[in-house]
């Protein structure tokens, strides 16, 4: 087709189209970055003046000049760590089953697969309502950290499963065959050949999923995270608040000064998320270097 001489005469117009398409793509990328930069500049201008050690380790307060965010940071950390502890083993195991042990792809497994894909697209508020019914009332966890973390686990589990599956799929089939040809069992070949090669992909996916859980507000409000805690949560049964909820609260306060505090809290949350995401980048880089 391309070599057909009849298309030669419009070579110039095709080239022009080529340039145009490239420019459009550039514009799209530029727009995304521009919006991000505007957002960042605005947040930094508003928020940076409040950032201090006292702000980070201080107690929550209804007085904007005196408030800190430590209880919210601790609450977020609790939720993050627990969510990771619950979702990683279950999610990775489910993915290993679906990818490795379930090679025949029965109809049941394709239904499960379809459901997981659909669940990953369900709005987070729906998980909040589910968590409220299931964990807060049915299992009687009340409005505790554990109820929040379990709800977050449900929320990110489909994503964890899918990214893990993708990472497993990326491991060449020959690795498994080679390993099993040498006499290893399936579990041995998964443990010693497949998982090590898929690890960086799995970890990247998990870290990105968990950073999503940290940024969520709506489901946690529904499962009963509060706006003010006088003392830090001591155990898994305690009430808690998280950073995004405080940001939401402060952004809606009537006093202008609170809006700056909200910007500062956004900065703290963003730095935290960048820190976590940098791990993901590190793992990816390491995996590439290995190859």
């Amino acid at each position, binding site marked *: 087709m391309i070599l057909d001489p009849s298309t030669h005469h419009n070579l110039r117009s095709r080239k022009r189209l080529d340039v145009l398409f490239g420019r459009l793509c550039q514009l799209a990328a530029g727009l995304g970055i521009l919006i991000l930069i505007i957002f960042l500049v605005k947040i930094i201008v508003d928020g940076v003046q409040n950032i201090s050690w006292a702000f980070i*380790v*201080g*107690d*929550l*307060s*209804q*007085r904007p000049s005196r408030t800190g965010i*430590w*209880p919210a*940071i*601790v609450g977020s*950390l*609790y939720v*993050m*760590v627990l969510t*990771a*502890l619950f979702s990683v083993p279950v999610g990775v195991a489910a993915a290993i089953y679906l990818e490795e042990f379930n090679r025949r792809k029965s109809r049941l497994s394709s239904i499960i697969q379809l459901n997981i894909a659909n669940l990953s697209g369900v709005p987070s508020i729906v998980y909040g309502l589910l968590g409220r019914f299931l964990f807060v009332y049915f299992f009687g966890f*009340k*409005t505790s950290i554990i109820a929040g973390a379990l709800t977050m686990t449900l929320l990110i589990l489909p994503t964890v499963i899918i990214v893990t599956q993708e990472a497993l799929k990326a491991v060449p089939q020959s690795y498994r065959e080679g390993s099993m040809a040498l006499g290893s069992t399936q579990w041995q070949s998964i*443990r*010693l050949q497949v*998982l*090590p090669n898929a*690890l960086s992909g799995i*970890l990247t996916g998990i870290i990105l999923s968990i950073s999503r859980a940290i940024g969520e507000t709506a489901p946690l*409000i529904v499962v*009963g995270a*509060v*706006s*003010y*805690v*006088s*003392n*830090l949560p*001591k155990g898994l049964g*305690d*009430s808690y608040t998280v950073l995004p909820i405080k940001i939401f*609260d402060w*952004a*809606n*306060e*009537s*006093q*202008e000064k609170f809006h700056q505090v909200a910007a500062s809290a956004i900065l703290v949350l963003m730095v935290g998320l960048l820190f976590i995401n940098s791990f993901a980048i590190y793992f990816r880089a390491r995996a590439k270097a290995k190859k």
Partner: protein
Amino acid sequence: MSNKSTWVLPTYILGAALALVLIGCSGGSTNNDPATGSTTGGSATTAKLSGDLKIDGSSTVYPIVSLLSEDFKKDNPGVAQTVGKAGTGSGMKKFIAGEIDIATASRSIKDDEVKALAEKKIEFVEIPVAYDGVSIIVNPANTWATDITPAELKTAWGKDSTITTWDQINAKFPKEKITFYGPTDNHGTYEYFTEAINGKKNEIRKEYQPMQEYTPIVTAVAGDKGGMAFVGYNYYADAKDKIKALTVSGVGPEEKTIADGTYSPLSRPLFIYVNKNAMNTKPQVKAFVEFALGEKGKAAVTEAHYVLLGEDVMAQIKAHVAAGTAGTMMKDFKPGMKLSDVYAKK
């Protein structure tokens, strides 16, 4: 090839995560200690209270209770207090379910809520804490309207209202487009406004823009020349540079007019409802209620830009609480009535 290294990384991450939690705990307690050390001096005589104290409900009352809770902590660092702002209705549900000790409300308790509490055998003590004046706000560029009557408000906000321009409210106003903003129906403010203006709770014109939070309402009116909205007094008081309030039958929302009831029918009391059993069995709940009824309570109300109850009503309320009287006094309360009259009737 390196079997061991497979598990090294996840172990590190798990370890790091656990370490973070530990840091979180220890860092928190070291942070708490100096605070308590410096402030417990004030009330060395009171016994050390502990346990928990759970409060939830109105987002309108939240600033007052949150300030109170913060000050209460200075003398009682051992009490784990939580304050939520799920909304008056949602707070009442939690109160009925026995999940919280105190429900805050920007309207008085409803008959069906009283009934539900009775079924669960939960006795409650009702405490008015402050006045609020629902303020009618418009854009500063709105030069035509300065005053509005309740009847005109009903013309605008009533259930069957279809008006789209200001001149339909009052012929003196120009033919400017009007847009209606207000809180969503889970707000006590919404219920109070609809009852006071439209005569029936929760009846309102079909076309208006309901919002969950008040700050976006203020922002919307500040950017809309023909906009009109109703918000709590503190949202108006904190944004006087962006919006203006209409006087209602010649009286504007001010601390004085709200307190003495002349800003009528839109001045209203705010409440906390305390689980009586919790007050009797949990000393920290009782201590908090006493704290709220004292000088600190007044300071919190003023600081949160709400309006203090009069001294006479406060004395009546204190007597009411001291006697441990359960149930609501507000059953026959109608918008525009004064609290002192309600309590005097008893």
